[in-house]
């Protein structure tokens, strides 16, 4: 891990602070809306991971493709999907960024090249690798080339698809960065209990894929590591790993009280809170005074208020659209029977 704290221009740091404050406010409200049953299903939050999320996304260019996990609200916001569209998706509304079809785990925005959250642990890893294959198929390497960032959690480094994908990326020289968000817990299992090599940035060594570990609580360090990895992907078609070490401030999902964590560990995570750390950094450097920092948080809160209002007011998808998105190409005899309907349509004529 880098020993010196990387620096960035003051306005960049303030921008990071704004984005992190928005994610924090959004996730706290998402938990609240889940408790109020506005949000169904599962709901996994980026609380505590804001610096990692913002740093990784800041390294991307608009032309790049981003694949993420089911813990991706923050990534969607940082990539530029409106807070209202994300909240509306959590509410299952037609105005959501996936039209209400995806929910918390399946956010998507084709225009922003935000290529999805994925509910199956590591399911996105082969897909992201294939997106990098498409880039390599269509275009030459170079500093202006497109690249792919594949975000995955620490737990996903133990699945077969991770290893198969890294091997493909290595032998085919694909422009992809595997960004491991190591929040130290796969659901409730500590990384060292789940991974034979708990220093996850080393897990590409079987494929000669290099990795770096960065302090995931420092958005600048994360951005710099990711930018360097993306540069190698673009110009040299060299895939690599960036491991960002961070903390999850809450349970695995909204409903998980996380009783498996020791009080000491929870305290350590709270002390490391990246939002507080960046705020202190900005105030100590004189970039912001306390009032200005509080204003940024208040503005984030207002944006989330508006997002909730938008989600509340938005319509649910019309059940008449049930079959609209399943296939792209209409062919003969596509079954569109609702439950209880005759599969052949009304058939009353007897012999």
């Amino acid at each position, binding site marked *: 891990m880098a020993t010196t704290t990387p620096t960035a221009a003051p306005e960049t740091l303030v921008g990071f602070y704004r984005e992190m404050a928005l994610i924090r406010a959004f996730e706290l409200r998402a938990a609240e809306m889940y408790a109020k049953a506005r949000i169904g299903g599962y709901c996994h939050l980026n609380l505590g991971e804001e610096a990692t999320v913002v740093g990784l996304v800041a390294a991307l260019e608009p032309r790049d493709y981003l694949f993420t996990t089911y813990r991706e609200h923050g990534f969607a916001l940082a990539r530029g999907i409106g807070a209202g569209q994300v909240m509306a998706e959590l509410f299952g509304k037609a105005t959501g960024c996936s039209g*209400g079809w995806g929910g918390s785990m399946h956010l998507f925005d084709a225009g922003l090249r935000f290529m999805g959250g994925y509910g199956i642990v590591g399911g996105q890893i082969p897909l992201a690798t294939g997106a990098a*294959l498409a880039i390599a198929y269509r275009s030459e390497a170079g500093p202006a080339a497109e690249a792919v960032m594949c975000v995955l959690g620490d737990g996903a480094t133990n699945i077969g698809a991770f290893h198969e994908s890294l091997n493909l990326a290595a032998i*085919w020289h694909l422009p992809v960065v595997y960004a491991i968000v190591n929040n130290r817990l796969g659901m409730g299992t500590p990384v060292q209990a789940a991974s034979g090599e708990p220093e996850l940035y080393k897990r590409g060594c079987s494929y000669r894929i290099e990795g770096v570990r960065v302090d995931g609580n420092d958005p600048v360090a994360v951005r710099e590591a990711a930018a360097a990895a993306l540069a190698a992907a673009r110009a040299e078609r060299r895939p690599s790993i960036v491991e960002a070490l961070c903390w999850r401030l809450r349970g695995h999902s909204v409903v998980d009280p996380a009783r498996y964590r020791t009080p000491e560990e929870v305290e350590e995570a709270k002390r490391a809170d990246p939002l507080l750390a960046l705020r202190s950094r900005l105030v100590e450097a004189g970039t912001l005074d306390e009032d200005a920092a509080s204003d940024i948080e208040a503005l984030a809160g207002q944006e989330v208020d508006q997002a909730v209002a938008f989600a509340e007011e938005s319509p649910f998808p019309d059940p008449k659209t049930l079959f609209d998105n399943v296939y792209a190409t209409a062919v003969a005899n596509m079954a569109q029977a609702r439950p209880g309907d005759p599969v052949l349509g009304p058939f009353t004529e007897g012999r």
Partner: protein
Amino acid sequence: MAELTYRQALHDALRAEMLADESVFLMGEEIGLFEGSYKITAGLLAEFGPRRVRDTPISEEGFVGAAIGAAMLGLRPVVEVMTINFSLLAIDQIVNHAAKVRSMFGGQVSVPLVIRTPGGGGQQLGASHSQNIEVYYAHCPGLKVVAPATPADAKGLLSAAVHDDDPVMFVENLALYNTKGEVPEGPYTTEIGRAAVVKEGSDVTVVAYSRATLAALEVARQLEQDEGISVEVVDLRSLRPLDRETVCASVRKTTRAVVAEDDWLSYGVGAEVAATVQEGAFDYLDAPVLRVAAAEVPLPYSKPLETAAMPATSDLARAVRRTLDESAYTK
């Protein structure tokens, strides 16, 4: 029209689609240098080069998933999975991803992907290499599943599958590769989702697909010649979507139906077709709908056991006769 093997028809369709569209490329184990385990891709590496004929390591989940990801960016990969048995290693990517990313993301992205893969027993390959598990995929909305029986349909459906913007499981059969048939020259497509009445008849309908269609045609000829039984044969061709109307229209005409398949009996295509027929032709039926399928055992290696487990033409003929023998099913 030229008489071609099923293998050659597949090869010709792949080559034509690659010539027609730069975004079409092939991926799979041993498809390039080795020219394909079953030689469907013979000569294509030499003609198109390694960018468009991509040999993969043995990692079905990885390369099928990568093909899905490439398709999400607009390429049109045609993946060869060496046999359908190995597709199980990639089933998470096929069922949880290829089939779902379009609807799950509100229709914002498509997966124009073809997965070609042969199934089928009878080659003494043992239990893990002899399965017909297309029904696993036919069960799943978001996928299209085709299983052509003839060289002409193999070419037409493969072209249709490549042009289609959805993921298509293209199910071949080891026993069909050397079969021959008339194949139209030049480009054409066979519509996905349409069954075909491949032989007309008036006494009983046999519904089949893939290799079982050839068995059905053989049985139909035999029974007509030897016993005067007029059998109509419906070749499903597509398993998803399933052309229920063509099946029911035939049964309304003949009043009897037998479903022939090489897969296991329970929960299979035969069960789906039988349920469809009783719903769509209930008043017309003069006999129970029968199913002829494989015995429900993992397919054994030893030839007499393998033969005993697989449906034979004599088994199908017996079932057809039974639908015509009232004493066999009335009290």
